[in-house]
């Protein structure tokens, strides 16, 4: 390697490292803040590295409502929002899982059907899905709320699941459609010749091959439903039924803002996404590459 190449590489690494630090800094800073006791958080000038490490903020979030009452809080006093954190976390998990299962299942079945059988008007479906994908949730949210009122579903987790299914389905539909269009049909025909029924072919041949597409659709759905704020804000009102995103904004309700608690919940909300990201990074890139920039 020549001296020039080494210099070039070093410069490249330096630029990348600088950008990466800048990009990651808000998250790192959130983590440090969450590990500091209250007094240190308000120190000026701020300490970069926590002088005292504490898990106090996390304990306050994760001990739940029962612990709050057992600690001797008189009934009738307002329960602080942080006591609901665990409920919110569980709500978000349920809603995210439910949405992902329904959205991917519905879109996989329909996309397979659309690419393998003939229907009147089937060529319009991907176009409609694309348009649906671009319609912002703010347009859906109020009429959808009225539909939920009609079905008597407001303030239930099911209403959130259905809402997220509706905003994720168009893109999942499009992704799976593009995916199945690229899967060679000969493999299925070979199985038909081998004597398998259409359902069996779908279950034993198609699904295992479609796995990368399904994973991409599932990741998209997971991200949307874990991250959404708007639907939760409009559909839900009981404290214990909120999803995480709506719940933590209640930390701003009082006059005094507890930044340590806030940053700890930031970290806890990011962890599931970070795990998912580490596990499935390759699929994410492949899926969005295929989906977002047409097949």
């Amino acid at each position: 390697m020549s001296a020039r190449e080494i210099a070039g590489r070093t410069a490249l690494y330096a630029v990348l490292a600088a950008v990466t630090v800048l990009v990651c800094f808000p998250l790192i800073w959130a983590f440090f803040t969450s590990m500091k006791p209250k007094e240190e958080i308000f120190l000026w000038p701020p300490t970069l590295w926590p002088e005292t490490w504490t898990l106090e903020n996390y304990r306050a979030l994760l001990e739940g409502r029962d612990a709050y009452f057992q600690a001797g809080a008189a009934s009738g006093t307002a329960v602080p929002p942080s006591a609901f954190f665990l409920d919110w976390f569980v709500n978000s998990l349920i809603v995210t899982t439910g949405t992902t299962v329904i959205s991917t299942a519905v879109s996989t079945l329909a996309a397979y059907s659309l690419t393998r059988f003939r229907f009147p008007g089937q060529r319009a479906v991907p176009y409609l899905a694309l348009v649906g994908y671009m319609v912002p949730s703010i347009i859906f949210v109020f009429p959808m709320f009225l539909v939920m009122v009609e079905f008597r579903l407001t303030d239930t987790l099911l209403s959130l699941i259905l809402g997220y299914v509706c905003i994720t389905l168009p893109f999942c539909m499009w992704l799976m459609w593009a995916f199945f269009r690229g899967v060679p049909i000969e493999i299925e025909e070979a199985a038909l010749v081998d004597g398998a029924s259409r359902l069996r072919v779908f279950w034993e041949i198609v699904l295992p091959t479609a796995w990368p597409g399904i994973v991409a659709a599932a990741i998209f759905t997971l991200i949307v439903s874990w991250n959404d704020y708007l639907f939760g804000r409009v559909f839900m009102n009981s404290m214990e039924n909120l999803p995480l995103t709506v719940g933590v904004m209640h930390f701003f309700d009082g006059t005094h803002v507890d930044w340590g608690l806030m940053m700890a919940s930031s970290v806890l909300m990011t962890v599931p996404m970070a795990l998912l990201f580490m596990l499935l990074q390759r699929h994410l890139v492949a899926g969005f590459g295929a989906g977002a920039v047409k097949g």
Partner: protein
Amino acid sequence: MDVRLERLSKSFGANPVLKSLDLTFPERRFVTLLGPSGCGKTTLLRLIAGLERASEGAIWFGDRRVDHLAPGERNIAMVFQSYALYPTMDVAANIGYGLRVRGIPRAERGEKVGAVARVLEIAHLLARKPRALSGGQRQRVALGRAMVRKPDIFLMDEPLSNLDAKLRATMRGELKRFHLDLETTSIYVTHDQLEAMTMSDLIAVMDQGVVQQYGTPEEVYDRPANLFVAGFIGSPPMNFAEVEVASDAGAPVLRLAGRTIPVPPQFDLAAAPRRLTLGIRPQDVRIAAPGDAGAIPGTVWMTELIGSERLIEVEIAPRLRITAEVKSEVRAALNAPAAVAFETTKLHLFDPATGLALRRRA
């Protein structure tokens, strides 16, 4: 079991692909559907397999009408152009899938798969996934999948087209051998006339959704039924030239480029039209000295050496060139005068209006 097609038609929308076909594939024969791409040969195979529904007509396997049956109910096996191996299953599962679907118990399945794998010499690959196999190995797995089931009919859709030239030559022999061992009726689709010639008992030459000629390789080669078959079969392709029927001292002769050619004995031109299309294969053309009687003079336009043979193209009239395939020892200088002479008994004559070959004397 023989396969019979009765007035079989297929169209995609308003686009007819097969036009009222009547064809019988005799039992245990190896029949090739040969034709250029788009001629309908693959569609015909897919109709026989049940992967497409016919628009009209009937398909019979023996005395059983099958065109309403699903592919899995027809007891056929099929090898696809891409082999269509199941990517998520290993080789053993790929070969055994048809048995598993039919509810054959695991032990019996393993035995049969093992036996087939030994015959095909892929026993050491049983635990591999298809993507870890070479082209030839994939081909064998696809064959194994067909073999293990003991099908009534064996269908192949251009199974050699993804292999390199050398492997293709070996696999041709193996496939033919495989057909004989399997003792089934085989139907083979290809656009490669060499494959059709070397492997088939019968060839159905197809074009534009119609069977142009159905016969043994010898029949199709020696007595093409029309201009399409004559031009499609044979390499290098047959020479064609327009000729006039004239009369020389009361006996009919053919006039080509100002010369006369005696009428081949196999044809009776009494009822023939005045203008005909003459066809002669390059192998049946000789290079003669420019002054030879009966030869047609011209100039050498191009020569190509193709191994032990040499192709010499002679221009005998403006833009009318005749190719001769001769021994490589025959030399010809570019632009030098040369003459071509035809093997009269190997001449073909066609009616240019209908494209059909003239009738031969019995």
